[in-house]
């Protein structure tokens, strides 16, 4: 484990900053995007899980660097937009940029290792991500995107549950201290 001694504007010693094997972050992100588009072909159930969002949250809270978090979120979001057929590039980009930044900031302050806290974190970020998407669509596209529905609630629960499992798998990509 490595310890960050100077993080953003705050100097908070004894905060764990996880490092990953080379190419793990990039590979995971690309794999998440590929799986998201690949699974999309096999029915409605794949829409329940937002793999790129989970990856963004995970690497954000693990690396705990807001700058890298926001750039990672921006990259994943823009690629997700590019792979979708009707989304203008930037819709997911904006949402995931902010999520990546906030996840990094939150990861530096609270315990993100416990499964329950991970579940709660994913649940909140899911709805936050959805809220940004809805606001962006309303403001920029004049679409009446919903802020909260039962369907979204179920999605958030499924994604959060799946996220807890995924996060545990991704923990194996961390370098041991």
């Amino acid at each position, binding site marked *: 484990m490595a310890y960050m001694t100077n993080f953003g504007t705050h100097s908070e010693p004894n905060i764990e900053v996880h490092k990953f094997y080379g190419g793990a972050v990039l590979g995971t992100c690309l794999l998440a995007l590929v799986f998201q588009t690949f699974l999309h072909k096999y029915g409605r159930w794949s829409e329940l899980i937002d793999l790129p969002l989970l990856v963004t949250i995970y690497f954000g809270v693990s690396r705990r660097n807001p*700058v890298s978090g926001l750039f990672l979120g921006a990259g994943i979001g823009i690629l997700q937009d590019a792979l979708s057929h009707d989304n203008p590039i930037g819709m997911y980009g904006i949402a995931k940029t*902010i999520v990546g930044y906030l996840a990094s900031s939150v990861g530096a302050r609270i315990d993100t290792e416990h499964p329950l806290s991970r579940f709660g974190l994913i649940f909140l970020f899911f709805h936050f991500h959805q809220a940004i998407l809805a606001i962006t669509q309303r403001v*920029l596209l004049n679409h009446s995107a919903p802020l909260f529905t039962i369907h979204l609630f179920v999605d958030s629960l499924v994604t959060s549950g799946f996220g807890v499992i995924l996060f545990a798998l991704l923990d194996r990509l961390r370098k041991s201290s």
Partner: protein
Amino acid sequence: MIDTFSRHRPLSLLAIVVLAQVLLLAFQIKRENNVRLVRYWAVELMTPLERVGTWTFSHVGGVWGGYVGLRNTRAENERLHSEVDKLRLRNRELESRSAEAQRLSTLLNFHDAHPEAPMLAAQVIGASADPTSHTLFINRGERDRLRRNMGVITPDGVVGKVVEVFPSTAQVLLINDKDSGVGALFAVSRTHGVVRGSGDPEPHMEYVVNDEKLQPGDVIVTSGEDRIFPKDLLIGTVGNSKPGSPFQVISVQPAARLDRLEDVIVLLSLQELAPKKTEENSEASGARDGAQPPQSSTPAAKPAGVVTDPRKFKPPATPTSAPANKTPTAQPPAPQQ
């Protein structure tokens, strides 16, 4: 600014990245009428600024034009009023000069029409202080070779005679003064008489017998018997006539406008004004000037008040058609002036 950016570097980067993506979206998204969102925003952003700018400029301009720019208006208004007054005065002066030039032109034409007769133009500078006396003063006197009993005329007709001569002025007795008398005759019938003043604006013709058939408008000219006026100068026309004892009472309408005299001609000799030359010179003068002969109040005064053919003369009021070749029935005495 840079310090603030350094202190909040992650947050600033977040803002920049999000803003960049928003702009990226704005370039892609098209609104109604296929207008890109970024153009929409640009217009929406700029329009209020332009409105504010226009409003500011118009109000500042209005304040400037309505208040600040008007601070000199009062002074300018006064200056313009003063200028208008001066121009009005100047206009009156020019109108006066134009009228004077017109009168002098008439006199000059008259003089040109009679080059053989020595004459002198004079300006009326005053009138008699006595309302019953019809005299006036002219700006010519002894220095200008004026003598007593010289005839004074206008292109319209006979005015009077010089009664007093001073070094630089002279007094003229008008033909309507009660002491005045001019040897006269009817232009058509050649009947003689004397035109005398009566103190009224209109003189009378005396010594015409009751048998003489007269009509209003009959022309009266000088007879030359008074040794003051040459023969055949226009005096006026018959106003009305009625039988009297022993002679008719005939009122005469003077051809010259005796109440509005400004410029007159003093005849320096008794030499007759050549009638034929008058017409020739009149035409020559008109041709030389390239203009119409000067207008006058009466047709008989164009340009010389000399009656050449009574049949051609048309008096101002009513034209006469008196028979020609009438034999005079009485011979009046020579007028005593």
